[in-house]
């Protein structure tokens, strides 16, 4: 009889189906399949059910994401994309997986075999673990940890270690260059990323993601525009995707940290990266767009609202990838340390002052921030966000090399003809 077990829809369903008896009749109602005294088996199976959903959701989601990204990138670049395997090429990721599975798995002689093999395992592990606290519908999660936000940040930063292990174990100088660039970039973007979430924690008064969703009378993207922007940019750097892909820059350092990887190990690294985009979109949707709550029927359609918000951010990430060229390392570093870090600092200090005044307004007993107060905070924070972006956008340009002659003045950029 555990409170969170009763709240959680999937837990309660599976638990009662197996372990319902007289002892828990008031919330199970009816006998389960197992005899009395075996509640722990029911509990264990209930936990494994959600784990199964999470693992399959992440891996199949990654497959669907690969297909969606290739199709959409093709559309952005006025081509057709994969369209041979299955309707609209939807079986393409499965064909890719089978191909990678039956390819030879080469481990270089000079490589450190144990570390080399551990890299894909750690990458996928850190990704799957970060999903554990994500509420993907009303009362549906693996665990409602009271340190949810910190847990996500802690677990997902294991990727940094995996990338360095990949670079070191490969004994290849391109892999090492990629790993060094990657570690520098990832640790630089981690600080604005973590600080941008402090504002959310301040307003919700808790680090649990379930409480964060419940505290959002207004989507936090309005209450915390600066925090949302910094988190979005920071996490798109953590994903190592195109504007920030200096660690696998294929035109400079072969393939960066995974140069030596082939076969199933490469497939696992790619799967972890692709599912990482889904996880990041899930966190963005949960923390800043209200998670499973929607304008209507959020109890019944929670998973659908969550999926819609997730798909919105996924599309945004693909759009960013299709639009921006790769940044140079000096631009990336200046962007993190001179632009995102001060914005994150301004955001959380301003939020702290606002939370103090609204808490004071409630009298001795500090209550939660109500809907009207969140509107007031949005009215203060949106102009603040615009002003600080303009100001620091100006400061951050200092020290960045700009080409003396603009490219357009030398090379006339041709107009792209309309394609189908």
């Amino acid at each position, binding site marked *: 009889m555990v409170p969170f077990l009763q709240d959680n829809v999937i837990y309660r369903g599976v638990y009662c189906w197996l372990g319902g008896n007289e002892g828990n009749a008031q919330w199970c109602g009816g006998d389960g399949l197992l005899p009395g005294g075996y509640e722990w088996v029911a509990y264990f199976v209930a936990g494994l059910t959600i784990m199964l959903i999470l693992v399959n959701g992440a891996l199949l989601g990654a497959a669907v994401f690969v297909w969606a990204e290739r199709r959409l990138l093709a559309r952005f670049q006025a081509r057709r994309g994969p369209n041979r395997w299955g309707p609209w090429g939807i079986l393409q990721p499965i064909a890719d997986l089978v191909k990678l599975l039956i390819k*030879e798995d080469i481990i270089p002689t000079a490589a450190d075999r144990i570390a080399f093999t551990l890299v894909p395992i750690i990458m996928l592990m850190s990704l799957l673990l970060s999903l554990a606290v994500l509420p993907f519908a009303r009362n549906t999660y*693996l665990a409602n940890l009271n340190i949810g936000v910190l847990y996500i940040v802690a677990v997902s930063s294991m990727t940094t270690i995996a990338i360095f292990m990949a670079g070191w174990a490969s*004994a290849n100088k391109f892999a090492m260059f990629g790993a060094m660039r990657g570690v520098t970039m990832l640790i630089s973007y981690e600080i604005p990323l973590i600080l941008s979430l402090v504002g959310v*924690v301040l307003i919700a008064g808790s680090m649990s993601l379930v409480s964060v969703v419940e505290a959002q009378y207004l989507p936090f993207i309005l209450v915390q525009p600066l925090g949302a922007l910094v988190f979005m940019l920071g996490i798109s750097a953590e994903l190592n995707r195109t504007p920030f892909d200096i660690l696998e820059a294929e035109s400079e350092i072969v393939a960066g940290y995974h140069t030596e990887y082939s076969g199933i190990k490469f497939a696992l690294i790619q799967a972890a990266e692709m599912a990482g985009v889904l996880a990041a979109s899930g966190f963005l949707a949960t923390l800043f767009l209200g998670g499973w709550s929607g304008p209507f029927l959020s109890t019944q359609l929670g998973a659908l609202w969550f999926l819609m918000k997730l798909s919105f951010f996924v599309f945004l990430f693909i759009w960013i990838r299709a639009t921006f060229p790769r940044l140079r390392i000096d631009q990336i*570093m200046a962007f993190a340390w001179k632009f995102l870090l001060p914005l994150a600092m301004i955001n959380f200090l301003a939020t702290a002052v606002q939370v*103090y005044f609204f808490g004071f307004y409630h009298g001795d007993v500090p209550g939660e921030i109500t809907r009207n107060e969140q509107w007031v905070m949005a009215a203060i924070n949106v102009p603040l966000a615009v002003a600080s972006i303009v100001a620091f956008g100006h400061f951050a340009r200092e020290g960045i090399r700009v080409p003396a002659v603009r490219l357009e003045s030398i090379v006339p950029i041709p107009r792209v003809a309309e394609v189908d």
Partner: protein
Amino acid sequence: MLEDYFRQYGLIAIFTIVAFIVPTSMLMMSFLLSRLGIRPQKPNPVKQDIYECGMETIGGRWARFNFRYYMYALLFVIFDVAVVFVYPWAVRMGKLGLFALIEMMAFITILGFGWVYAWRKRDLEWR
């Protein structure tokens, strides 16, 4: 309440094992496929050499690195330690009130001086 707390972390512990088993089983499957002869496994010295665009390899992992990487690592350590103090403060800020607010302002101001110093010394730039 405490039991609830430990059960949740117990689930996370079980999930850690599951998350380890999933990729490991995929690697095992690939190994089995090579045993069954479905997947080729024909190593030779040239194939297992360090990849370098088809050339003879010049230098391994002991390549020289820019000293800049080290400066960023130092800055990261300073700010990351600060974050450890910020999170517990953020959870309790609404209840602790003005005292906590002023303390954190002072803390961030000191940190901010360090950040401005690093900027003025041009350590935030990649030269």
